[in-house]
């Protein structure tokens, strides 16, 4: 029956069920990603941000919150210019991080 309205999906992130495989694999390959403090320097300086909304900070957070679609969209806007790596106060190799992520499939496996 059509009521003219539907159940809307919850926007809440359930950390019990969220799929963090890509994040887990990433930090295994690149442990420095763990030290992100979410300061946003990367996003503020990002060449791609004004074009595509790319933000390494949001990518790292999104991966931990199961927001894979947004993450992929952001990643596909990165131009690898490396400015984020230059400004990261925690010295995270963000450029490599992005490349590593692009090599992981949905299950967190490195594609061959």
């Amino acid at each position, binding site marked *: 029956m059509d009521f003219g309205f539907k159940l809307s999906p919850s926007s*809440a992130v*359930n*950390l*019990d069920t969220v799929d963090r495989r890509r994040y887990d694999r990433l930090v295994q390959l690149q442990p420095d990603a*763990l*030290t992100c403090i979410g300061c946003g320097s990367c996003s503020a300086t990002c060449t791609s941000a004004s074009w595509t909304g790319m933000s390494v*900070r*949001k990518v790292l957070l*999104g991966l931990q*919150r199961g927001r894979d679609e947004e993450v992929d969209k952001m990643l596909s806007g990165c131009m690898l210019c490396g400015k984020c790596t230059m400004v990261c106060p925690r010295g995270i190799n963000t450029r490599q991080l992005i490349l590593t992520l692009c090599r992981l499939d949905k299950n967190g496996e490195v594609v061959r």
Partner: protein
Amino acid sequence: MVNRQPVVAVIGAGIAGLEAARQLAALGYKPVLIEKSSATGGHVAQWNRLFPDMTPAADVIEPLRAQTAGVKTLLGTEISAINRLKDEYNLVLSDGSSLLCQAVLFATGFRLFDASKKEEYGYGIYDRVITNRDLEHWFNTREDQRIRQPKAVGFVHCVGSRDLKAGNTQCSKVCCITAIKQAIEMKEEFPDAEVYCFYMDLRLFGKKYEDFYIKAQRDHGIHFIRGRVSEVGEAIDGRVVVKAEDTLNGKPVKVTLDLLVLMAGILCNPDAQRYARETGVAVDEDGFLKSRDNLAAITESSRPGVFFAGACTGAKTVPETLAEARSAALAIHQYFSKRV
């Protein structure tokens, strides 16, 4: 007066009181430690290890106890009343005796916020919700039915701190670093557990604190979620369901935990407020005792002969408290030197 050794009543035998008493005795005064509880050492004695070097609390307490062995210490003694005399104070003690002293040092310390007052977190209602102190107690004794091989542990920062509704708008200063310390300890204890810290701001101001934080992130993979826990519920299996907003993500988060640790904040000891009224020293807007000057004379009250050391004037770390205790002893020394 001139021929007598001046007596200094040190109220509270926590680390501030012990250290001040030690220094005062060394300076040739006669400190008297008055302690409400049955043992010296205060809160620190109840802790297991201390940040940022994981020093056992006993390593701080035991030397202090040993070096104040010669100081007259009244344990299990409360102060019924304080009478102001000319240049002197008369303390009426709970055992009926009274103590005449030429100076009073408040080393009254702090009281941990009663976490059950944050009703939404369910401390005292949900089995799996404990406080920072409970966890330290477990580290010390390993006796707590609530801690059984947890797979997910959460820490809530700022419980009763920076919270108008909880009656304390101040930062308790040490909870962030304590939460990180305890999170690391839990992770070391239960390596397979996921550990979450829910924080509003991380205030890691002290020496090596930031390193500690990085260690928690990089070496232990502790998840830091910026957002205050809004409410806690109990799932059917007795685990707790914690809801918060992940403010960096702008979305609500929910997680089921086996253990939730509330980082109860630091409030002024209510006894101190009463003693302050009786001795005529001011209590500040934040509920802590009011120093003569917050920059230059933090250990001095607005009244001659009344001094402060440690957390009675605000949340303090162990080194800050010890430094203040020494500073207070010197201030007392100068006070008597001037009078002579």
